[in-house]
């Protein structure tokens, strides 16, 4: 009794702290993309919030850079099952971007260059849970990873963190975005493994 090591069972994913169910750790940064990588010149970049009444608030690149930025470290979890822990970013909190926007909308749709969309509840963008980021590990965000700027919502699966983000549309009702319309979960909580519709 006790002579067979319990450690011989191979990798036990659930034993890694910070790793949601069904995920594995990766130390590189896989590039996933649903289309061509846009190269967005900074003089054409703009981030626009459109409310449910059609009111628009927008920032060009220099106005966006002048907003208070935060440096922070978070874990990210892709629905294709890789997770990357301790990633460091710099960006503007959605609390800052939405701070002066008058809206009673409960849902938002993020839009990107190239036509990608993803839906996120308003409450998941507020209280320090989401950012528009433009630096990764101290470097300008590479176009393959969504540069010049992407959404970052680390508590949801990474498809919610829209690359090449151009803005948010605020909506009274929830609507599916690009992947949600094709079978993925409307919310996408990695800790509840909400990968597909019905999970």
């Amino acid at each position, binding site marked *: 009794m006790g002579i067979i090591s319990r450690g011989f069972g191979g990798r036990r994913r659930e034993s890694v702290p910070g790793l949601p169910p069904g995920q594995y750790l990766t130390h590189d940064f*896989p590039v996933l993309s649903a*289309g061509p990588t846009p190269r967005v010149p900074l003089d054409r970049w703009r981030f626009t919030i459109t409310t449910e009444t059609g009111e628009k608030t927008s920032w060009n690149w220099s106005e966006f850079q002048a907003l208070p930025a935060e440096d922070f470290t978070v874990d990210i979890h892709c629905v294709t099952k890789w997770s990357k822990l301790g990633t460091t970013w710099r960006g503007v909190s959605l609390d800052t971007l939405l701070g002066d926007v008058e809206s009673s909308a409960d849902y938002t749709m993020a839009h990107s260059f190239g036509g990608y969309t993803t839906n996120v509840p308003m409450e998941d963008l507020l209280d320090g849970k989401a950012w528009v980021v433009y630096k990764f590990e101290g470097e300008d965000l590479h176009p393959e990873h969504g540069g010049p700027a992407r959404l970052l919502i680390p508590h949801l699966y990474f498809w919610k963190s829209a690359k090449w983000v151009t803005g948010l549309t605020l909506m009274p009702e929830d609507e599916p975005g690009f992947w949600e319309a*094709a*079978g*993925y979960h409307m919310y996408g909580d990695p800790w509840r493994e909400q990968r597909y519709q019905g999970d």
Partner: protein
Amino acid sequence: MTATSTEEFEDGATLDGNAMAGDLREVFAVDVTSARYMCAGCRHTDAVATLRLWNRAPGLVARCPNCEDVVIRVVRAPDKVYLDLRGSVRLEVPLEGV
């Protein structure tokens, strides 16, 4: 012809529509890659096999080589396949042996 290298297409697609054949064979009794699609965006029409395919994504994304609009999306869940065809006005499927 199936693309074999990541640099095959200038638009960044790594594969063409032939690479959807396996997933679509599970759904249809015919080879859909030989069917003709009509793009809902630009009305371009050609064989499904000629679509530009992005497969390093949460699903397969097949785009029109003419206008880059998404024509077909295929998402594999453990127990089902979702096939989103809203980017295709129609599929013209040849019947074998007729």
